C-alpha cells in the first residue's frame, strides 16, 4: 500500500460513515463476550433491519471499553456532520438481547433508554486519559480499514518515508517511554543497543505472555486494537534493523490470538508486513508463538527458550538479548503496551508524548483495576496520578460499606500498599520506594475482610507453582516460604519461624537466577513491613505449637489398627 492508497482508504471510510446517523458499538472483548454481547449485537442488528434503518444505523462489534464489570456495554455514537466536532456518545450498561427493541426505538425517536444509561460524566470516564486505548472500544478490531480510518499506519509511513532508523530511536528516546512490562527500562536505550549490534539477522519479539494474575491490559489491547501493536512492532523493527518478529502470546487468550492472527494477515495483504514494506528497502515478517501455561516465560530469556521449542528456563544474563538473544542473534524484546505506545510517539513527536506524566515516568499507563472496588475494569491514566484518585474517584471506592485495607500492584512480584500511602503518585520510582513495583499494571484492591497473611500466601503459592526449578533459592526457597506462610495462616508459627521467613526473603531476593525468584518475596516483605501485627498476632510459643501439633498430628499406634 502506498501513502496515497492509505489516504484513499481513510477517505472512503469517512464517507461511508458520513452516510450514517448512528453508530452502535457493541463490546466484543473477553469480558463482555462472556456476558453474551454477541447475541446483543445480533438482536440489535435484527431490530435495525426490522425498523428498516440499515442505511443510517450501523451495528458493529468493537473492543474493550474498560468498564468490564457492567458489561455488556453498548455505545451509541451520533455521527457528527461537522468534522472535528466533539463526539456525541451515549453508553448503555448490562445490555441483554431483550433490550434491543427499546434501544433501536430510542434511535428512531431520539430518546435514550433511561434504565440502561450510564452517566458519562462519572469520574471513571472523565478522569482517564486515553492514549493507547484511544481507539479501543471504538473501532472494529477485525477490520484494518477501521484502524486506517482513525489514522492507523500513518506513523509507519512517516517513519519509513521521513525518518532514518536513528531518528526513530531518537524520537522514542525523547519521549521518555519506559518498558511497560514491569522493568521500566528506557525503551529508546534498549532500541539503541540492539540497533548498534552488527548482525545479518536480528529478531524482534513482542512479549504478550501476560501472566500476572489480575492483569489483562495486554489481552485487551490485542483484542481491541491489534494493528496498533503490529504498527509499533514494524516501526521498532525498522529502527533496530530486525527482519523477523514474533508475538509470544498466552494460549489462555484465544480471542487475542485470533484477532492478532487476523490482523497480521491483513497487514501482510496491505503490504505493511513482508518484503519491501511500503516500497522501502525494509522487510519484516511476524509470526505468532503460543505460550503454554508457564508464567516464567514472561522472563525474556525463558521466553526465548520457549520460542526455540525448549523448556522455559531462564539463563543467566549477560549476555543480554540485545547482544545474544533468539538463536544467539541480537533480539529486541518489548511488551505489548510498550509497542502500542510507539505509533503515537512517532506521529505526534517524542516531546509531545513527554508532556504527560512525571519527571521520570512519561506518558500514560493502563491498569487492570480489580478486587474490592466498585468499578472493576481497565483504565488508562497519566503517570503520576495518585492511588487515591485511581481507587476512590475512577474506581468509585470500596463496595459493601467495607474499609480499604491495601492495594496490591505488580502481581506476584509486587507488594501491598497500605492506606497511609494512598496519596503516592503512581510512577516507577514511587511504587518501588514503597516496596512494590509498577509491574505490568495489575492493581488489586483489598478490603478489611482479607487477611494479609493469606494474600502473601496466595502469591507465594503462585511463585512456588510457577518456579521453573532451575536454581536452588527459587525452587526450594519459595516452597519453604509457602510452608511457613501456611503455618502463620493456621496460627502454628513460632518466633523462630518468623526469623526463618525473613531470612528466606533476603536470600531468595538476592540469590535467585531470574526476576521471578528475585521478586517472589516482595508480597511477603511488604506485608511484613506494613501489616506486621497480623503476623505477630499469629505467633505462639513453641510449647503451645508442639503441644497442639503433637496431639493433632501424632496418632496413637492403636488408631492405625482401626483405620487399617
Amino acid at each position: 500500500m502506498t501513502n496515497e492508497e492509505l489516504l484513499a482508504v481513510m477517505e472512503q471510510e469517512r464517507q461511508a460513515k458520513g452516510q450514517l446517523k448512528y453508530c452502535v458499538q457493541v463490546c466484543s472483548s473477553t469480558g463482555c463476550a462472556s456476558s453474551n454481547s454477541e447475541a446483543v449485537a445480533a438482536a440489535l442488528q435484527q431490530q435495525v433491519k426490522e425498523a428498516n434503518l440499515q442505511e443510517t444505523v450501523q451495528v458493529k462489534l468493537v473492543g474493550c471499553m474498560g468498564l468490564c464489570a457492567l458489561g455488556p456495554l453498548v455505545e451509541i455514537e451520533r455521527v457528527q456532520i461537522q468534522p472535528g466536532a466533539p463526539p456525541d456518545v451515549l453508553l448503555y450498561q448490562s445490555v441483554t438481547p431483550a433490550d434491543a427493541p427499546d434501544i433501536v426505538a430510542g434511535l428512531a425517536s431520539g430518546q435514550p433508554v433511561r434504565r440502561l444509561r450510564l452517566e458519562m460524566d462519572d469520574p471513571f470516564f472523565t478522569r482517564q486519559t486515553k492514549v493507547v486505548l484511544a481507539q479501543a472500544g471504538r473501532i472494529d478490531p477485525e477490520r484494518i480499514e477501521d484502524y486506517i480510518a482513525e489514522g492507523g499506519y500513518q506513523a509507519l509511513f512517516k517513519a519509513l518515508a521521513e525518518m532514518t532508523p536513528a531518528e526513530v530511536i531518537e524520537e522514542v528516546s525523547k519521549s521518555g517511554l519506559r518498558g511497560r512490562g514491569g522493568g521500566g527500562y528506557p525503551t529508546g536505550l534498549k532500541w539503541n543497543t540492539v540497533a548498534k549490534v552488527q548482525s545479518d539477522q536480528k529478531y524482534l519479539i513482542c512479549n504478550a505472555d501476560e501472566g500476572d494474575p489480575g492483569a489483562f491490559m495486554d489481552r485487551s489491547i490485542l483484542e481491541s486494537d491489534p494493528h496498533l501493536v503490529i504498527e509499533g512492532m514494524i516501526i521498532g523493527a525498522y529502527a533496530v534493523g530486525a527482519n523477523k518478529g514474533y508475538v509470544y502470546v498466552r494460549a489462555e487468550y484465544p480471542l487475542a490470538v485470533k484477532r492478532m492472527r487476523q490482523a497480521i494477515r491483513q497487514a501482510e495483504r496491505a503490504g505493511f508486513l513482508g518484503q519491501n514494506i511500503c516500497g522501502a528497502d525494509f522487510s519484516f515478517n511476524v509470526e505468532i508463538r503460543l505460550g503454554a501455561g508457564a508464567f516464567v516465560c514472561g522472563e525474556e530469556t525463558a521466553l526465548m527458550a520457549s520460542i526455540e521449542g525448549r523448556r522455559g528456563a531462564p539463563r543467566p544474563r549477560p549476555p543480554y538479548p540485545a547482544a545474544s538473544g533468539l538463536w544467539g542473534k541480537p533480539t529486541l524484546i518489548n511488551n505489548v503496551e510498550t509497542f502500542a505506545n510507539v505509533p503515537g510517539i512517532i506521529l505526534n513527536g517524542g516531546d509531545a508524548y513527554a508532556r504527560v506524566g512525571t519527571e521520570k515516568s512519561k506518558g500514560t499507563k493502563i491498569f487492570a483495576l480489580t478486587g474490592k472496588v466498585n468499578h472493576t475494569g481497565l483504565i488508562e491514566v497519566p503517570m503520576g496520578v495518585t492511588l487515591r484518585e485511581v481507587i476512590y474517584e475512577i474506581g468509585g471506592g470500596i463496595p459493601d460499606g467495607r474499609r480499604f485495607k491495601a492495594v496490591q500492584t505488580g502481581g506476584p512480584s509486587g507488594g501491598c500498599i497500605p492506606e497511609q500511602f494512598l496519596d503516592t503518585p503512581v510512577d516507577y520510582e514511587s511504587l518501588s520506594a514503597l516496596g512494590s513495583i509498577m509491574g505490568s499494571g495489575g492493581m488489586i484492591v483489598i478490603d478489611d475482610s482479607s487477611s494479609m497473611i493469606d494474600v502473601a500466601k496466595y502469591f507465594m503459592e503462585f511463585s512456588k507453582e510457577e518456579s521453573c526449578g532451575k536454581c536452588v533459592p527459587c525452587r526450594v526457597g519459595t516452597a519453604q516460604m509457602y510452608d511457613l506462610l501456611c503455618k502463620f495462616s493456621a496460627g502454628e508459627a513460632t518466633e523462630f519461624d518468623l526469623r526463618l521467613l525473613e531470612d528466606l526473603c533476603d536470600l531468595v531476593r538476592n540469590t535467585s537466577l531470574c526476576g521471578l525468584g528475585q521478586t517472589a518475596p516482595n508480597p511477603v516483605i511488604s506485608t511484613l513491613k506494613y501489616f506486621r501485627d497480623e503476623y505477630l498476632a499469629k505467633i505462639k510459643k513453641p510449647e503451645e505449637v508442639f503441644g497442639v501439633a503433637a496431639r493433632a498430628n501424632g496418632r496413637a499406634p492403636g488408631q492405625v489398627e482401626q483405620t487399617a
Partner: protein
Amino acid sequence: MSPVPITTEPVKTFKINGQDVSARETESILQAARAHNIDIPTLCHLEGLSSTGACRLCMVEIKGSNKLFPACVTRVQEGIEVMTHSERLVKYRRMLMELIFSERNHVCAVCVVNGHCELQSTAQKLGMDHVRYPYLNPQLEVDASHERYAVDHNRCILCTRCVRVCDEIETAHTWDVMGRGIGSKVITDFNQPWGESETCTRCGKCVNVCPTGALFEKGKSVAEMAKQRQFLPYLVSRREAMIE
C-alpha cells in the same frame, strides 16, 4: 609463575579478595579464582561441562555493584574487584546448603557415597552443622532397573550434571528434567525405568559426574562408592583436538 598460559588471547588483570590476578578474557571468575588457588564452592558446576549458574553457591560480590554474580558464568573483566567470602556470601551459601538438604531425603549415614560426597564435604566446608528449615520429606522412588547402575531420587539435588554430560559428552541425551519447580525430576527417555531406556549407552558418565549418591553403581554398599572423573578432561581435550 603466572598461571595464565602463553596465549594470543587478551589477558585481563583484576583483583580477587585484594589479590592481583590475571586471566584470559574468555575465562570465568571461577576459573580465574581456582587457577590462583582461591576456593569458591560449587555444586552444579563441573569443569568440562557447560555452566548453568543453578546452584548459586559460587555467587561473588563485585565492588561497586549491589548485585551478586555467579562466578561460574561471569566473565572476568579488567579492573574489577571481586570478593568471594564476605559475611553476606558466607551466610547465603550456608542457607543455600540448608535449602538443598531440606529439599529431599539426604541421609549421609546410609549413603553409598558417604565420605566421597561433594554435597557432604561442601556442607562441612561451609560449616553447616544443622538445617534450620523443615525437611520437606518428599516421597521419591529408587530406580534399580538398570543392569549396572541405579538412581535414588531422594539424593538428587537437580544439579543437571548427568543431563549435561549425557548431552554434551556422550551425546545420547538420555537424561533430562521433567516437571518444574519443586516437582522437578531427572528422567531417562520417556520417564520409563532406566533399564528400559532405548538411548542409554550404559557408559556410566552420568554416574561418575553426579556429586551425590543419587547415581551409583549397583552392588556398592554404604560409603563404598567413589566417583571417577578423570575421563572428563580427557574427553574434552580429545574433542577439542578433533575439532582443530
